[in-house]
């Protein structure tokens, strides 16, 4: 594999006494779409702004394409940014907005016009080239902002919550389109988002941030199915977490003593940790089966259905276990009607396969 495009080495950033970004190491590969995911204030935007050059790292080093970026001002970086607010210049037409960076780079009028046409065609905005930003809809502004940021053909494009201002339906369509444009142009994208669905849809890889640190990097599937910490398990998707202790740990299997689940959880592989150590067991709602009678699943829990929430695509059962713990179970609604639907108040047995359980440090 070729050398990574961006290397972030031990980068920290403090504002006064507040440590926004803490010892981050990160490599971003050429041509990939990398998502930085985290809640508000986790440091993802600060990290992005350091890549753009708006903030200087308090310590550590950022290199882009082998060049040390320390002290390189934003206007001299081969990096462009698409702002969350889009930051379109209100006094310029769409065409002039898109051509702005090209003119600053010394492109002639003719060159600029040609490239602007190309960019507007890419985002399907050719027919609105003469409009001003305040005459555009939110989705149209988003396209102009993207075209403007791509016009100079940057090595790296930074996108700060690129779809945050769009409504849900438009956002889903635009996510796929953004991926297409990224593939067509081949530019490396770094997208900052707080929306896990968006990160999963867009990203080739995700970096999950919490309190200024990157807590896990991986493909969407890796991060969802193999979270490495409670925070990641809880932040990405919905999860049921049980407190427990390692009761037995062998090469081929392990058992977790888990009073909250009612009985020991059996897992068909070894776990990291020593016997007696406190751990958390994470179980995704869709990996738990629900029924009136005990099924064949190796792990079982008894309880009573508290609430049933119909979500259209799936139904979520909130089950109160006999141990007092509340567990969410989701079941896909594969049929339109269900004659013997499980209702609130019914006693149920929950089951799950051992490999569905993820054992995490407590």
């Amino acid at each position, binding site marked *: 594999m070729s050398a990574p495009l961006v290397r972030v080495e031990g980068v920290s950033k403090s504002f006064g006494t507040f440590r926004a970004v803490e010892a981050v190491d990160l490599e971003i590969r050429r041509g990939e779409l990398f998502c930085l995911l985290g809640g508000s204030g986790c440091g993802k935007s600060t990290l992005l702004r350091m890549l753009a*050059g708006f903030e200087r790292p308090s310590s550590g080093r950022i290199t882009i394409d082998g060049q040390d970026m320390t002290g390189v001002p934003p206007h001299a970086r081969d990096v462009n940014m698409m702002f969350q607010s889009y930051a379109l210049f209100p006094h310029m037409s769409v065409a002039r907005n898109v051509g702005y960076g090209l003119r600053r780079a010394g492109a002639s009028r003719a060159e600029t016009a040609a490239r602007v046409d190309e960019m507007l065609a890419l985002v399907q905005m050719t027919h609105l080239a003469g409009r001003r930003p305040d005459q555009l809809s939110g989705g149209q502004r988003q396209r102009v902002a993207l075209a403007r940021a791509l016009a100079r053909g940057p090595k790296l494009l930074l996108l700060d919550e690129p779809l945050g201002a769009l409504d849900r339906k438009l956002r889903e369509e635009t996510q796929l389109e953004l991926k297409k444009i990224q593939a067509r142009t081949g530019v490396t994208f770094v997208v900052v988002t707080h929306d896990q669905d968006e990160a999963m849809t867009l990203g080739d890889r995700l970096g999950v941030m919490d309190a200024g640190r990157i807590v896990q990097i991986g493909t969407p599937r890796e991060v969802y199915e193999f979270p490495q910490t409670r925070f990641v398990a809880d932040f990405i998707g919905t999860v049921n977490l049980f407190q427990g202790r390692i009761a037995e740990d062998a090469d081929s299997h392990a058992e977790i003593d888990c009073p909250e689940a009612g009985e020991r959880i059996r897992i068909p592989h070894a776990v990291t940790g020593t016997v007696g150590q406190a751990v958390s067991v994470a179980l995704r709602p869709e990996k738990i089966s629900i029924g009136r009678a005990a099924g064949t699943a190796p792990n079982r829990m008894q309880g009573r259905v508290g609430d049933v929430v119909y979500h259209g695509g799936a139904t979520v059962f909130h089950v109160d276990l006999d141990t007092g713990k509340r567990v969410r179970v989701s079941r896909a609604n594969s049929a339109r009607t269900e004659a013997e639907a499980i209702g609130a108040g019914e006693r149920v047995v929950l089951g799950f396969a051992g490999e569905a359980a993820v054992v995490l440090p407590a």
Partner: protein
Amino acid sequence: MRRLASLPPLLWLGLFFLVPFLVVAKISLSEPAIAQPPYLPLWDWADGVLSVTLDFGNYLFLATDPLYLASYLSSVKIAAISTLLTLALGYPMAYAIARAPAGRRNLLLMLVILPFWTSFLLRVYAWIGLLKANGPINGFLLATGLIDQPIVILQTDWAVYLGIVYTYLPFMILPLYATLSRLERDLLEAAADLGARPAATFLTVTLPLSMPGIVAGSMLVFIPAVGEYVIPALLGGPDTLMIGSVLWNEFFLNRDWPVASAVAIVMIAVLALPIALLRRIQAREEEEA
């Protein structure tokens, strides 16, 4: 209740602001006379016949006597130069205040407004003492060896520029601050991100977007400066020609009310364009707010 609320201000301002202009217009068309009041009536009822005598002589007089044309031109020139100087000083100050940390911004704004609350007359008067040939400014410059002879500022047009800049600076800074503080940081960062150096960012983004503030501030200085009387009276010299002083002298010294009225009407005509410009900017701002 709503109609009732409109009545008092409409009546008051109508009677004491709008009607007076009609009176001025009327008197500007009357013939001067040695009488009390010193003009002849415009219309007369005699033997059941209404006779109206319109006298355009006052306007003709303004057009033929070169003093008036020169005064109008000189007033516009002095007001324009002062406005540019106020802008040159006010823009960087407004910019700095808008970019200052949030905590310090209000303090700086208050420091700009505070002098406005103290007597304008006394503040202009203070410059007489400062600018004298043997005053502290000349004393300081002589002591530092920057000059070897006292410079004469007082009773020149320069003192008038200075007085106008000094008096009207807050009127320039406040609208500029209003537009500059609304300028989003994102836009400046976007320009830098797209390769604009600081100077290019200023010229292509900051300056065009602060244009409403520049125009509003300039008009707020220019319009009253054209008709300024106190500043040239205290700081200007005998050569300083300003139309406000001309009107004053026509009225108080020559007691020629019709000519003074004609001077006022022409002044309003001269100011109509800048006032319309200001109104348009303000209306647009209100719409956006």
